[in-house]
């Protein structure tokens, strides 16, 4: 399966929407059945293509949120205001609709179960999605690799997977940037050196995966190298402009 997921030319598949799940007021998960899906690795994405009646096409990349599970693929999509593709996926697409997708894409920003190294996950907003696939894959595989998730998100209402994250056996640090729940000790603000968890210091040689809007990922990668992490152990994925209100 893993071999099939990284070898061979990519082609377009047509998936059928089996379910949709609201994750926040701005994001939802689309559950697809994709006949012929070769399986995927945690961290991979798909390219989604929409075609208008006049033939105009628009294409965007979306991370896979689910662990490999046969021909089932879950995408979590956050609304980009004034976006061309995400408003359709978040607000219009319905169960039973068809969706064109190409994938699974990527062999760099992936985590493979069986890797024993500690893993530090750094998510900005919906950059959590591919990291969620890693967390779900870790849980499903019974991996004992130590993980820690740093999740920068603007406010509690925008936090994805709030019910599931506490069940995955991995410590989660929420870094709220605009509004915090009452009683939070950490002040509101962007990620800083103070947020880096003990146990994942550079001398432990953790693998680091950082994903989010381009500005967030640049800042996080700079912070981690400043803290002494080996740039070669930091894998990054940038998805361009931020979703939601900044």
């Amino acid at each position: 399966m893993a071999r099939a997921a990284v070898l061979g030319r990519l082609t377009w598949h047509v998936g059928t929407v089996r379910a949709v799940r609201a994750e926040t007021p701005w994001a939802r998960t689309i559950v697809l059945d994709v006949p012929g899906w070769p399986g995927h690795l945690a961290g991979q994405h798909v390219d989604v293509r929409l075609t208008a009646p006049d033939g105009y096409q628009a294409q965007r990349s979306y991370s896979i949120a689910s662990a490999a599970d046969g021909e089932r693929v879950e995408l979590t999509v956050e609304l980009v205001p004034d976006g061309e593709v995400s408003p359709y996926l978040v607000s219009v697409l319905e169960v039973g609709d068809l969706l064109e997708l190409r994938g699974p894409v990527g062999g760099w920003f992936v985590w493979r179960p069986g890797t024993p190294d500690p893993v530090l996950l750094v998510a900005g907003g919906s950059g959590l999605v591919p990291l969620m696939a890693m967390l779900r894959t870790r849980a499903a595989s019974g991996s004992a690799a130590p993980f820690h998730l740093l999740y920068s998100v603007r406010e509690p209402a925008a936090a994805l997977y709030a019910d599931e994250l506490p069940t995955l056996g991995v410590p989660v640090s929420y870094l709220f940037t605009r509004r915090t729940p009452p009683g939070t000790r950490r002040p509101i603000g962007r990620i800083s050196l103070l947020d880096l968890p003990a146990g994942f210091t550079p001398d432990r040689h953790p693998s680091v995966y950082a994903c989010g809007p381009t500005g967030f990922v640049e800042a996080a990668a700079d912070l981690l190298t400043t803290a002494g992490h080996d740039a070669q152990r930091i894998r990054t994925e940038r998805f361009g402009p931020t979703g939601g209100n900044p």
Partner: protein
Amino acid sequence: MTTPLDGNALGGALGELFTVDITAAIARCAGCQHTGPVAELVVYASAPGTIARCPSCDQVLVRLVRSPDRAWLDLRGVSVIELAVPSPA
């Protein structure tokens, strides 16, 4: 100004052309000799074509233009590309 993506976003389009994953390939910039994974290139995908630039010196490494049934791929900014290939059994 357009916010760039990174080389992970090239994986789909180049994955239609090549049988190995290109995002984990190691590319050397023909301009400054910076060497690193394609995933870390700076990618502008909102133009009619896709452009990937060196994260170190900004030189254009990859230009890709697609039509429905053709691809034009300009790699002159890359001096060497190192790919993982499956080993026999």
